[in-house]
């Protein structure tokens, strides 16, 4: 990157908001995935206008740009695949407006997901999408990836809770789409931009819908001696038309690791547990709890415990949401996969994942959103062993291919990013990708925003038409 650009950025944003020394940039070459990509410069704007001016400068110098929130992403979406300028939104972290009567809030992209809930919970409201990283991930990243979480089964993913966006386009233009109340005239632009992984625009202001806390919450822990029984229980719950607020599954190998670390109350001798939450009016939650207990017992659940108070409930969820941290005790790193299958295929999918793990010599744990068929197999590996990493990636591709074969999808909530761009043809035809590319080019014609993401390089869709160190797709693998 030219020193003149660094000088111009420093002049625009101040020296404390620009990083360009190699030792400062190392932190930004990682996210939560196994990918890597180091930016040449990192900046921390504080206003939309600063974002716009920064983008104009980068455009003038023909430098690629990637946006980043907290860097907790799991598909390499916020990595600088081709180098260039990284815009980090950590310092645009203000909640600008809270409208309790209309159950909405306007926030900057750097606001941490859980902080929205903390700001409105006094009024009995919360922000529904709850990725496991919600204590640290930012809403801007959630919007870019259309993030999910355990409770999206009943409440929907991020796009269902966003009504308007302010964005900066690749030429620096500031635009607004959507409306506060959610309905706006014309095409559903929010529906397109949420989940576009920072490849069409950079979001600088977000209007979110807030959800009313349920009158009653019942949390059930169903304990099984066989994984197959647990997965058949999930299939049966779905088939009976019961939609819990959350339905999570943890296999025995994973729950023992969690239990050693968190002491959440998961029985160490079980083969699998289901953590099921029901929300709504008391009558609805209790009625569903009884029905689910019956289904669990029908499928040989050893025991179904109901959390007796909020403390017990929180402990169970602490076990679920801190699972990945717990796994860090077993290996230097883990590779969390993200695939989706039709829910009725859960039993055979889990069996196949196990077989793939054995084939490649990995113990693969499973802790995932069973209710919506969103699998998260976890492969433990040592990143210093390049052979192990390559094998982990090969195993993961085989799992994702199998998900697609079953009628599923490449990703349920982590996004395509760098990780799966080459797998896109498994799901999409040339015509599908061509249309996506035309939409991409309509907003990001020079691929200056987040180049090398989503589209497979061999389709020409990831072609970088501006400066930057070109890496062929998947080269980091």
């Amino acid at each position, binding site marked *: 990157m030219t020193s003149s650009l660094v000088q111009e950025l420093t002049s625009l944003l101040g020296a404390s908001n620009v990083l360009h020394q190699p030792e400062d940039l190392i932190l930004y070459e990682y996210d939560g995935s196994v990918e890597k990509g180091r930016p040449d410069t990192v900046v921390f704007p504080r206003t939309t206008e600063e974002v716009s001016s920064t983008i104009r400068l980068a455009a003038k110098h023909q430098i690629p740009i990637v946006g980043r929130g907290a860097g907790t992403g799991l598909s390499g979406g916020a990595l600088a695949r081709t180098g260039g300028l990284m815009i980090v939104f950590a310092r645009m972290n203000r909640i600008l407006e809270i409208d309790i009567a209309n159950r909405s809030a306007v926030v900057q992209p750097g606001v941490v997901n859980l902080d929205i809930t903390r700001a409105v919970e006094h009024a009995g409201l919360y922000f529904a999408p709850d990725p496991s990283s919600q204590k640290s991930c930012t809403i801007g990243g959630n919007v870019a990836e259309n993030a999910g979480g355990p409770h999206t089964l009943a409440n929907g993913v991020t796009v269902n809770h966003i009504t308007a966006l302010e964005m900066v386009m690749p030429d620096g233009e500031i635009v607004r789409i959507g409306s506060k109340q959610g309905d706006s005239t014309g095409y559903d632009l929010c529906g397109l931009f949420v989940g576009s992984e920072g490849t069409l625009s950079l979001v600088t202001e977000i209007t979110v819908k807030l959800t009313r806390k349920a009158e009653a919450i019942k949390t059930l822990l169903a304990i099984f001696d066989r994984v197959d029984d647990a997965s058949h229980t999930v299939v049966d719950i779905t088939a009976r038309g019961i939609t819990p607020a959350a339905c999570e599954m943890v296999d025995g190998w994973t729950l023992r690791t969690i239990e050693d670390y968190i002491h959440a109350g998961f029985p160490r001798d079980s083969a699998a547990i289901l953590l099921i939450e029901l929300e709504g009016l008391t009558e609805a939650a209790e009625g569903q709890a009884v029905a689910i207990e019956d289904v669990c017992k029908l499928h040989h659940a050893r025991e179904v415990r109901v959390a007796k108070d909020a403390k017990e409930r929180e402990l169970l969820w602490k076990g679920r949401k801190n699972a990945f941290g717990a796994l860090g005790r077993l290996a230097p790193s883990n590779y969390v996969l993200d695939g989706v299958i039709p829910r009725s295929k859960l039993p055979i999918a889990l069996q196949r994942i196990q077989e793939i793990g054995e084939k490649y010599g990995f113990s693969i744990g499973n802790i995932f959103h069973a209710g919506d068929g969103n699998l998260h197999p976890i492969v433990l590996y040592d990143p210093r062993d390049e052979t192990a990493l390559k094998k982990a990636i090969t195993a993961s591709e085989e799992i994702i291919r199998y998900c697609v074969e079953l009628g599923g999808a490449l990703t349920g909530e982590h996004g395509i990013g760098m990780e799966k761009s080459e797998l896109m043809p498994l*799901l999409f035809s040339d015509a599908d990708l061509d249309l996506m590319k035309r939409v991409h080019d309509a907003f990001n014609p020079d691929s200056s925003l987040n180049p090398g993401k989503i589209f497979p390089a061999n389709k020409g869709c990831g072609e970088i038409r501006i400066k930057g160190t070109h890496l062929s797709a998947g080269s980091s693998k």
Partner: protein
Amino acid sequence: MSATTSIGVRLENLLGTSRVILHDEELREYAVDGVMPGAIVQPTSAAEIVELVRFAASDGLSLIATGSRSKMDFGMPPARYDFAVDLRGLQQIAHYDAGDMTLSVDAGMPLRVLEKVLSEKQQFLPLAVPCYETSTVGGAVASGIDSVLRQQYGSVRDYLIGAEFIDGKGAFCKSGGRVVKNVSGYDLHKLLVGSLGTLGIITRLNFRTFPLPQVFGGFLAGFAEPREALVFRYSLENKGLPLANLELLNPEAVILTHRFLEKESQALPLDDEQGHWHVYASYEGSEALVQRISRELEELAREKDAIQGGELFSAVDAHLGGVLREAFDWLRWCAPSVALFRISLPQVSSADISRLQEIAAAAGLRSALFMRAACTIYFAVLAEQEHLSSIDALSKIAEEVFTIVDAKQGSAILLHAPQTLKQRMNVWGARRLDFPMMERVKCAFDPKNIFSPGRFVGGL
């Protein structure tokens, strides 16, 4: 050989003579705001539609996809309309996994037929849209018309999980999938909702399905003043009661609803003579849940001094619910000239409602108002004549409505208006600042502007 004949002959070469209609009488039935197509084609597969679109794209022809044609008065008159593509020949259920609660169905499938298939598995799709008896799945999605069950189930974008369609280059495309959670690639199918067929021809849609409720309940409460009715309505929402439908009706809406119930010789739960405002709520679920909601509604109605009200007998509720579902349809035709607005505001106050009514009253016109889920208002201004003076009055009213709604950062469209009114004004209101973004979307999907040109926002 005339241009029209030439198109007809070439279409016949593509589909065969039996599925190309060229008779004026039938062509008139497919007219959109008085603009007639040169031909009607009746494809039975996506592959045939690919050929039709490629033909249109190569020859610079424009086409409009149709289903049951119950909502063809949406939008502006088409700038060009060479042929209609009737999708009712596409009626297959490509995939229905009741255990997985996912469905993949052709665009031409009538909602009523689909309902029967799903109900055999104790499931349903909450697409309870007006003109339900004839509407097709594709038309319901492309029109973007609200389902009357939106309060509980959200809008169709919330349960549409994928789509197959033909883009403006004649390529068969898909977006999303058949799983309930999916962030693979751009969510292009969301753009199709409410796009009025301007982005592509939808051939198949994927949905998540829902369990049929066991028990249904309905409640109606009357109030003397709009403020009291609104307070009651908002109190219901704030209690967090899971209501399937929640409607507020002004006195004129009550009179009209009463009239339609009478037509069906049904028991009349609405008192239309007192000039009361009414709030109607429907709800569903288990026996215990429905009883609980009924109880809460009765207590709240007492607390908020409802003049009249109570739980409805199930047969009465079903008929009232059906008449209200169809309100959009019968409002269009309940007076010689009707301007029917769909208005969405961040928060509706009684002053907003009064203001809307006053605008109509100042012109000496009656107005029926229904406020529904997400503070959406259906506001119909009724003119008893088709005279120029009525159109003048409706035009002036429309301008005022758009101005008021813009000032409140809401959105408004004229869902239905006499053709003479459309000649004077744009039913979509003024172009919004995000219009250039929409132009880019349109151009990416339909670079030659062959799909329903001119009908959508800003002339797209």
